[in-house]
């Protein structure tokens, strides 16, 4: 059986996989990181989003073997060791940006990537478009958008140049 070596949340792992094994299956079933969810399994819902080499990707739409040598960050890798939440997680909590919580790990991972890659600021419309790979059945998205806008100043440690709303 082939092996894949990848770094997940700073820790290096070598795992035996099949050719068809998906990255999300390695994360959940081999490494026990069940914070990354499988929602639709048709590459549309975004519940499985993680960061691979600094980019948000759908871990259900990537073979584990494609992640050879990659640096992967999952929802479990965001909070500090003392339990302090990442600013995006904190703003999701603050703004009640989740109800059932199923989409939340993917939503948070996509949102962090979106905010990090827009140092010029984000409008409400840009946040909504930037999250269109993540589906939520509960919230109506409004509080998610608020949380992402609120996290921008915390992540960039300055006021957002453009008003989000």
């Amino acid at each position, binding site marked *: 059986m082939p092996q894949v070596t990848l770094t997940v949340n700073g820790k290096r792992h070598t795992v035996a996989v*099949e050719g*068809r094994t*998906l990255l999300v299956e390695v994360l959940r079933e081999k490494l026990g990181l069940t914070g990354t969810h499988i929602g639709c399994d048709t590459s549309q819902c975004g519940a499985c989003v993680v960061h*691979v080499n600094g980019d948000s990707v*759908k871990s259900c739409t*990537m*073979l584990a073997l494609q992640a050879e040598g990659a640096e992967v960050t999952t929802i479990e890798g965001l909070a500090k060791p003392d339990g302090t939440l990442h600013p995006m997680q904190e703003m999701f909590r603050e703004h009640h940006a989740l109800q059932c919580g199923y989409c939340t790990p993917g939503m948070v991972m996509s949102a962090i*990537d979106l905010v990090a890659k827009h140092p010029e600021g984000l409008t409400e419309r840009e946040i909504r478009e930037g999250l269109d*790979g993540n589906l939520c059945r509960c919230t109506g998205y409004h509080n998610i958008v608020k949380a992402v806008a609120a996290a921008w100043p915390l992540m960039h440690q300055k006021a957002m140049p453009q008003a989000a709303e």
Partner: protein
Amino acid sequence: MYDFTYHRPTSVADAVALLGSDADAKALAGGQTFIPVLKQRLNKPSKVVDLAGLGLAGISLSGNALVIGASTRHADVAGSADVRRAIPGLAALAGGIGDNQVRHRGTIGGSLANNDPAACYPSAVLALGATIVTNKRSIAADDFFQGMFTTALEAGEIITSVSFPLPVAKSAYAKFNQPASRFALVGVFVAKGPAGVRVAVTGAGQNGVFRQRAMEAALTASWSPDAVAAITTPAADLNSDIHGSAEYRAHLITVMAKRAIAAAG
């Protein structure tokens, strides 16, 4: 998903040899269509040959061409200062494919080789008169797209880059999204460049991307949204499905063409 053996060659020659070694071997680019297809068991490859290790990613700008490597991701095309400057409509198109996560994996070569009838890239490649470069030859866009999911690519032929002729005076893409998939219900790319004035339509045609030649003639005479406002597309050859009838798509072609022309300025 049925199991397969995974291969990651580091040269085009090795990739071609692997693909040629087995009739059921398949190439993997970004995987944003291919992996969902595998998950649905619509395809049962014996070998999957990952093209990501071939060193085919990158964008280069010369005086008379913008060359995009086959493995270049949509996000990198969208974010490239060279693409934005040389062919802004192409950068905008790449930035609207799928969602951020798809754009972080999907590649131009993969999109073109698949030739999904609702994919965005074929419209730009056809409207801009680009050349698809493979390990064997160069193929003009006019000859490359040969119907739904069908291209001029032969067995064992791999796209290595796409060359867009410059200078491009005007370029823009307008897409009406199918909201669940973010593929084009109808997408129209308009361009004025070395290939002349061209209008290419994706998402609508039963045989995939096509040129709207009546609009091209009208825009050659007068580049303005009004020039195409009265030009209709026969619905007979257009797709009809639960998302939209052929007549609806025909209507959208004119609407999207007008929007694209306005956006191109």
